[in-house]
């Protein structure tokens, strides 16, 4: 048992953090709601009660996975680029513009549109990258500011140049069908973009842990001076890690447009980039954990929406849970004493001072 706990300690820790977060919100619901039983059931089980809601969870996880991956790549290089939101927005707007103004066969139109969105996102994130590499300007600040620039620039592009005046509200023209990502499960909006986001998670995982460039990125993140000393071109890595981040976010944004609405209809910044930061933190920048974290976050927010519709509790409750979980997960000390006691028990059992590996 002890050995099991030690091996999966981080996972167990995360689960406990989640459990505590949920317990606290259960408590809050009990205090606040007139019909606590119903509310609780709606909140915890509601998201699973219909096919379309389960589908909803999966649908809304997809862009968050993309953004989580984007953030993780930059964070692993210790580049605190939080510009996934901006890269996603600008990537999706320019991608939309490209898609509606071209006529191509489907097997070219789809990949090309995604590529355009990705490249635009990459270029966008290149800005904080180069500012950091050349002049040591904080990428945190510049990427944050650029999120707003992206937002207004993107809206301008859509509202003034690609607005569908016939639609009656502020949206772009509909994408030609050759640029649609197919929804392949009847009665839901689950589309190929989701498969793509999962594929990307595996790709990014492989990239970070099994390729030389991934090693360079992580090593730069661990100790920049060490990386330099070992001959890694850290100038390149600082920029590249952010460019890759922007690419993933931009592409991710476009899948959303191509798969769900088939036109650009965000008048507010959708916030996936911010959720991406949350899941990157919960998943400790690990691509595969980011999938799980995104699904979980998405489950919570669907639960929140159902809550809003059916009960007297506002959906903001999920923000409370989120914050508690993040706090617990990022607090290094949380449960470390417990782990320590188990380790000691194990070590004492063995009673041998350890020897160097052979």
């Amino acid at each position, binding site marked *: 048992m002890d050995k099991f706990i030690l091996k999966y300690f981080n996972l167990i820790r995360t689960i406990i953090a989640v459990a505590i977060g949920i317990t606290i919100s259960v408590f809050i619901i009990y205090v606040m709601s007139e019909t606590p039983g119903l509310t609780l059931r709606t909140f915890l089980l509601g998201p699973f009660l219909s096919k379309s809601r389960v589908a909803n969870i999966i649908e809304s996880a997809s862009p968050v996975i993309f953004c989580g991956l984007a953030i993780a790549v930059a964070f692993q290089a210790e580049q605190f680029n939080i510009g996934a939101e901006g890269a996603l927005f600008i990537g999706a707007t320019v991608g939309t513009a490209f898609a509606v103004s071209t006529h191509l066969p489907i097997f070219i139109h789809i990949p090309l549109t995604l590529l355009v969105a990705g490249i635009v996102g990459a270029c966008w994130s290149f800005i904080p990258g180069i500012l950091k590499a050349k002049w040591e300007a904080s990428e945190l600040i510049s990427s944050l500011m650029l999120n707003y620039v992206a937002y207004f620039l993107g809206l301008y592009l859509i509202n003034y140049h690609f607005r569908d005046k016939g639609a009656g509200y502020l949206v772009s023209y509909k994408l030609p069908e050759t640029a649609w990502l197919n929804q392949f499960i009847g009665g839901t909006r689950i589309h190929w973009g989701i498969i793509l986001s999962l594929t990307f998670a595996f790709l990014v995982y492989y990239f970070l842990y099994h390729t*030389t460039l991934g090693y360079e990125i992580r090593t730069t993140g661990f100790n920049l001076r*060490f990386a330099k*000393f070992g*001959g*890694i071109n850290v100038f390149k890595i600082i920029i590249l890690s952010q460019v890759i981040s922007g690419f993933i976010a931009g592409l991710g944004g476009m899948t959303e447009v191509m798969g769900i609405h088939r036109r650009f209809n965000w008048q507010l910044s959708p916030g996936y980039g911010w959720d991406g930061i949350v899941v990157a933190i919960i998943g400790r920048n690990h691509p595969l954990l980011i999938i799980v974290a995104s699904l979980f976050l998405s489950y919570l927010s669907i639960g929140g929406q159902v809550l809003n519709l059916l009960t007297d509790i506002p959906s903001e409750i999920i923000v409370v849970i989120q914050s508690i979980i993040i706090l617990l997960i990022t607090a290094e000390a949380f449960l470390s004493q417990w782990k320590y006691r188990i380790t*000691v028990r194990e070590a004492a059992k063995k009673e041998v001072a350890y020897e160097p*590996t052979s």
Partner: protein
Amino acid sequence: MEKILEVKGILKIYPNGVIANKDVSVDIEKNTIHAIVGENGAGKTTLMKVIFGITQPQEGEVFYKGEKINLKSPHDAIEIGIGMVHQHLMLAPDLTTAENMVLGIEPLRGKIFLNIDKAFEVTKKVSQDYGFDIPIDKKIKDLPIGIRQRVEILKALFRNAELLILDEPTTFLTPQEIDVLFNTLKDLKNHGKTIIFISHKLKEVKQIADRITVMSDAKIVTTKEASELTEHDIAYLMVGRDISFERISPPEKMGKPLLSVQNISYINDENVKLLNNVSFDIRESEILGLAGVEGNGQSELIKIITGLLKASEGNIYIKGESIKGLSPRVIREMGIAHIPEDRMGYGVADKTSLEENFIVDRYYKSPFSKIFRLIWKYITNHSRKLIEQFKILTLSSKTTVSSLSGGNIQKVVVARELSSEHEILIAAQPTRGIDVGSEEHVHNLLKNTRDAGKAIFLISADLDEILKLSTRIIVIYNGEIVAEFTDVPKISGKYLGPYMLGVKKQEAAVG
């Protein structure tokens, strides 16, 4: 004799399961200098951390002045009069020297604000009192490691501890500074203070300690009066075999120059000339020793040779080819390996595994990777071999470097650099912080490297090391080469001293 500190039956197991102290009991007598020696990873630092309240043991008791104490943090320790100088320096990098000096006991202005003038004043006074020169208003992170160590020592002295723990305080100090420190310590002892002193330099231990405790493999081997033990005895107790302190024999014959440094000058951002027209060659099968008081341009010189810093003037040739404008990677590929002086800053990424630390200069080459794919199986095997060959004490090759003892971290660096394909080795303080047994091991490796026809540039603050290994010695002072000695067996440390301090200078000393 009155005991100031009694440690009884300490068992310390780290969160990763390493048993670092086992049934450790030792008495420290008041008014003595008590040395603790032992191999890397023997558990010395751990014991000190227990005494200082940084970490709590699973079993055992500590008595201070006859009373049982239960320290929860270093703060508690300072409170009751215990001070400590840490092996891996613990200063706030973003604060200035003076701010670090008064950290926790800040002189205040109007009860809230730091009185910075006062902080400067006391810092200046402390530095004069104890004869250690330090800049008072520079940020710690901008200072070379030698100066940081001085600051850390002064900080501990300034707090006026009854019991002062010094964990390898001399690793980054010059011989002169060590003398100053030792005088200070003796002075403190005469004023009734007690000192625990850890060092791998047995000469120092003999020179200053009244009593000596030897640790090995998490346990206490013995505690004896210093007068009962010779350096050889201590070494024997530590590693269980005899250690040679003899100079190594000179090379049979030397070949053509591999590294040629020509008229290098360097002027820093603040317009200070740190290197002035430095020139020398190192030939195949030659070990060139660079003697000098730390901070006389050595760090800059090393960084320029390895491509981490650009020279203002002059040029460097590797096997006849200029390295001007080339990146550290290309320079390494031309045949340079580099053991850096600042092991935690440049030598390792301590938050990741030994494996990832071993490959930083070779991950992109076959068979470590193919095209762009890392071959982890090969890397793991490679790492295991290095761990075995260099006798690195670690749980596995996947262990995080930060959980190794100081000396074992140094071995990680040495293992990587010596195993790289190189023809020229820049070895800056190669045995800093490693125990006598491993030191002998590294020295033998350096000798083998030399005998394999490679050129070695040895930079060391330890004159004995320079004298033991070098084929030829040059002395640097204030950024200039002031002397050169080709007949190494004839000279002694005393002879080099005046040159290192800039008192003497050879005319036309350039080699």
